[in-house]
Structure formats: structure tokens, C-alpha cells
């Protein structure tokens, strides 16, 4: 019967059936492994957990012993920048190819404690640097809807794994759009939580002031179920924050009443690059939300147009600092050609890092270096303040903000691989949210030329509960996005 299990069903239902003994964790995980084998040509995953079925048996034993597990037997994949005790952790960079993590962070620990089963590590742009997953040292992932196109990135393997039904959910990281963009390109839901809501401990650091951890799922309610397990402060991450006292688990299904909900439509995200179809689907959705009683008005956030420039100063600066730990001495790749300690550093980093990591380290070091710090880094931090103030003013007027997740659907593999700046521009609608620390969710909006497109809803910090309620209502008005 295992081959008939559909892992795209609601996570709460899958877990409840395992809890009730209608299906076993072993059967769910076997269904996941079968689906992974059948769809492996998309290269969504870097490694499949050889212990997955054993872990599933352990969950079945816990259920049999009477434990109540909110994610009992639910198979998931983690982006390969999450440290995990099972399998390797590479961040898709050959500088970490031999690495086995000596610990795992609260996000993974909490999911495993809740009964979820880690079945695989998902592909990504190396060190999460990119928006296409082509920058993986182990080969690009293909878009599940069109194998000639990119899945988006950097959490492209996670998005593809969910879209392919390989797992019930997958974990991603979002520093400038890396959960939302691939969710949009692959036709799944991607949640970027409030900065700090999920502790970052146990994830390979990229830009520490914007990195967040979150799930990619088939529906907003699944994202809420997973966040409910992952969220909350942990002493190991001093920047982590308390969870909402009421938790995030979705309310029982009810009529979506949007009367009085005020939504600001971000004008800066409706500019020239937007395809007519993205615009049309977005306008239709706005009308449908209004028909349900929401008040949607255009709002201007001028600093949003500067967000990408500020981001590509601040994040490379943080990247250059975070990647300083790859020294060829303590872990990771070490050059055999080095004759001195200085050469160990220089050659290990030259041979181990890919072109994009080197580019970001050089840019980051440049903008932080003596004589340039005030002109670049400090100025970008001040622009960040302006952006935060604009969002604050917007949220004084509106409950939520709305816009496209990306101006276009997925582009062909190879189309932007040799133009770093063109690649950076994919994140034009997503980075501002990271700089202000707000939560946002990307939902499938419809198709453009057959390819998935996405809409994003943005809420004030710590307002995930309102975000999920509005997301569920928006999903309801969009209906079957695949035929839109």
C-alpha cells in the first residue's frame, strides 16, 4: 500500500493517521523513498538518509508507547546547510565535502522530537549564494514543472523536493529571498519567519543579520504546523526570540472573513520587469480579496527600490566574516600543496570555494576595508534604517503588505549563470523583507506560460498568526492555482 500514499496531503492529517495507527511511519518514509527514487533525475537532493527507515521504526515505537507526536512519521528534507547528525553536511560546496556535523541545532532537534523523519539533504546554491541552485558544486537542480528551467534558489532543492512530492515538507533558509523565490518558481508555499523566531544555531551561516530558517510546504496550514514545532527562543542563539504564547497551529477550518483587513499593495514591486500575466493574476487576486471584505490600497515604499543595493553591501560583508572560518585547519578542505600556514589558508580557500563565494568574500572585504567602510557599509546600514522606518509607517496603516514574490516565472538553466548582477536582480521583490526582519509567505498564484508564479504576503515582526490566517484566506480565493 505504500506506493499509494500521497505526501502532498495535509501534514496534520498524515501525522494524525500515524498517531491513530492507520498508517505507520515506516510506510510514510518508504513512500518518500520510493518517490525520491522515481524522481531522482531532478537532482533535488544531495544525499538520502541511509538510516531513514530505522528512524521511522523508532517513531512507530514511540507512538506505540503512547507518545503524542505532532509530526509523527512525517518525512522531511533539510537544505544541506542545516547541520545534521545523520548524513553529511556540505552546504553544496566542495570545501565541506568530507564534513560530518558533530552536533545539530534546535530546529532539527525540535522536529525530530516531534516525530518528523529526516529522509534527505536538499541541494542549494553553494553556501546559499544564489537564486537558481545552479551554483551548487554538485550540479544544478531542475525545475519540477519544466526540467529545462531553474527551480530558483538558494533553497531550490527543498522547493523541488516538495513540488515533486518526495517529502511532506522541506527546510530552507532565507537571507534575501532564498525560501520564497524557489517556492514561487516551483509552485509551493515558502515561509520566511520573523528574524530570530527560529534559532539559527546549527545552520551554516551566510548573512547573520538577515538569515532565517523556515519551511517549504504544499499549503500555508502546513507551514504553520511546522513553524509551531520549530519556533521559539534557544539560549544557543542570542538573537532568537520567544514564540507567540498561542503558538502557530492553524485554527480549525472556518469561513475566511476578511472584513476590515487592510492590505497595502507595494507599488515599487509592480514596475517594469513584471510580466503582464503576473500583474493580471495579482490584480484578480486583489479583486477577490476585496470581494471578501478586505481593503486593498496601493502604497509606496520608496526605499524598497534601494533595498537590493543595500543588501549586496551588507550581506557580502557578513559573508566575508562568516566564511573566514574556512581556514583548512579545523574542518573542511585543506590544500595538499600548501607548504606554510599562510599557504594553507590561501590555497585551501582558493581551491575549496567556488567563484560566487570568492566574489562575495572579495566584495565584503572591500566594503569593510579601511577607507571604504563609511562610504559603503555604514551608508547601507543607514539605508536599512530608512527602509525599516518606511515599513513601520506602512504597518501603522495596513495589517499586511502584498506583492509578487518575483517579477517573472523561472528562467532557463544557464540563462544568467555568467552574469552575477542579473542573478542578483532576481531577488528584487524579496530582500527588503529580510533587511527589516519581517515575516513573509509566498503562495502559488497561478501560471505564466505554464510556469508557476507566486504572490507574497508580508506582516509586521512577530505577526505570523495573522500572516497564516490571511494566507489561508488568500489560498481559498486563488483556489486551484495550477489551472489559473
Amino acid at each position: 500500500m505504500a506506493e499509494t500514499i500521497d505526501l502532498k496531503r495535509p501534514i496534520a492529517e498524515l501525522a494524525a493517521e500515524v498517531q491513530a495507527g492507520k498508517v505507520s511511519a515506516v510506510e510514510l518514509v518508504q513512500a518518500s523513498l520510493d518517490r525520491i527514487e522515481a524522481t531522482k533525475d531532478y537532482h533535488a537532493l544531495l544525499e538520502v538518509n541511509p538510516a531513514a527507515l530505522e528512524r521511522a521504526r523508532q517513531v512507530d515505537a514511540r507512538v506505540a508507547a503512547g507518545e503524542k507526536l505532532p509530526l509523527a512519521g512525517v518525512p522531511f528534507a533539510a537544505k544541506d546547510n542545516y547541520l545534521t547528525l545523520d548524513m553529511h553536511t556540505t552546504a553544496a560546496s566542495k570545501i565541506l565535502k568530507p564534513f560530518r556535523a558533530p552536533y545539530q541545532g534546535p530546529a532539527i532537534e525540535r522536529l525530530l522530537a516531534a516525530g518528523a523523519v529526516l529522509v534527505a539533504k536538499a541541494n542549494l546554491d553553494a553556501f546559499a549564494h544564489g537564486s537558481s541552485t545552479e551554483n551548487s558544486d554538485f550540479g544544478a537542480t531542475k525545475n519540477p514543472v519544466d526540467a529545462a528551467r531553474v527551480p530558483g534558489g538558494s533553497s531550490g532543492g527543498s522547493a523541488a523536493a516538495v513540488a515533486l512530492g518526495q517529502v511532506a515538507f522541506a527546510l530552507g533558509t532565507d537571507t534575501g529571498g532564498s525560501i520564497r523565490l524557489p517556492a514561487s518558481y516551483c509552485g509551493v508555499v515558502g515561509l520566511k519567519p520573523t528574524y530570530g523566531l527560529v534559532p539559527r544555531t546549527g545552520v551554516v551561516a551566510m548573512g547573520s543579520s538577515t538569515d532565517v530558517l523556515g519551511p517549504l510546504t504544499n499549503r500555508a496550514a502546513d507551514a504553520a504546523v511546522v513553524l509551531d514545532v520549530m519556533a521559539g527562543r534557544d539560549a544557543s542563539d542570542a538573537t532568537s526570540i520567544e514564540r507567540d504564547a498561542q503558538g502557530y497551529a492553524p485554527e480549525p477550518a472556518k469561513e475566511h472573513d476578511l472584513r476590515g483587513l487592510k492590505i497595502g499593495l507595494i507599488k515599487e514591486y509592480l514596475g517594469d520587469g513584471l510580466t503582464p500575466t503576473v500583474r493580471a493574476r495579482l490584480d484578480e487576486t486583489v479583486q477577490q480579496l476585496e470581494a471578501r471584505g478586505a481593503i486593498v490600497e496601493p502604497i509606496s515604499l520608496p526605499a524598497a527600490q534601494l533595498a537590493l543595493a543595500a543588501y549586496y553591501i551588507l550581506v557580502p560583508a557578513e559573508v566575508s566574516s562568516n566564511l573566514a572560518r574556512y581556514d583548512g585547519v579545523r574542518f573542511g578542505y585543506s590544500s595538499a600543496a600548501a607548504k606554510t600556514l599562510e599557504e594553507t589558508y590561501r590555497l585551501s580557500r582558493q581551491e575549496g570555494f567556488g567563484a560566487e563565494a570568492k566574489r562575495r568574500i572579495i566584495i565584503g572585504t572591500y566594503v569593510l576595508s579601511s577607507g571604504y567602510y563609511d562610504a559603503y557599509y555604514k551608508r547601507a546600514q543607514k539605508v536599512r534604517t530608512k527602509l525599516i522606518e518606511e515599513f513601520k509607517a506602512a504597518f501603522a496603516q495596513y495589517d499586511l503588505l502584498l506583492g509578487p514574490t518575483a517579477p517573472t516565472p523561472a528562467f532557463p538553466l544557464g540563462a544568467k549563470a555568467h552574469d552575477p548582477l542579473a542573478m542578483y536582480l532576481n531577488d528584487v521583490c524579496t530582500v527588503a523583507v529580510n533587511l527589516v526582519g519581517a515575516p513573509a509567505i509566498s503562495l502559488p498564484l497561478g501560471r505564466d506560460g505554464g510556469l508557476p508564479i507566486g504572490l507574497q504576503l508580508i506582516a509586521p515582526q512577530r505577526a505570523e498568526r495573522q500572516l497564516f490566517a490571511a494566507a489561508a484566506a488568500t489560498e481559498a480565493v486563488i483556489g486551484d492555482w495550477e489551472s489559473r
Partner: protein
Amino acid sequence: MSKIGIAEVERVATLARIGLSPEEAAEMAAQIGQIVGFVEQLQSVDVADVAPTDQVNGLVDVMRVDEVRPGLSRDAALANAPAQKDGYFMVKRVLNG
């Protein structure tokens, strides 16, 4: 404002302890020049009297109890080391003689 030359890329690469081949340095000078050109748009923004932001979720001076807690064992910490000896990370000789 600034066009990034190959010598500048090599200077920064030295600061970052990254070796670059001459071809890499040349390609990177062109690409980084383009990216720095893009971020130059911030130079025209009025940021007088604006304070810089480096922490966004409102936490200030998060303290922890100053007490000894278990950490990684020596074996676990060394398990991924490219070279080790007598329970230490091993590096190339840094002193002559």
C-alpha cells in the same frame, strides 16, 4: 565612483586570505566593478541624521548565566580536522629552526 582594478582585487584577496589566479582576478575585477557600480546608487541617498541599523528584532544586550556547561568533546571537535596530532589541530610550521 570607483572602478575596481586588478591590483585592488589582489590587495583585497590578500586581506581575505584567498589565492586568485591572474585569470580569476581579471574576471573578478570586471564583475565586481559592475556590482559596485550597481550599489553606487546609495551614494545619492540622503542619510544625514539617520542612525545605522545592525540588529532588527529589538533585542538588546542578551545575557546568559556565566557557568560551565558541557560542550563538544575533544574527539568530536577534532573529528573533521584535516590534520591532527596528540589531540591538537596540526598546522604547518610557523617558526623557522
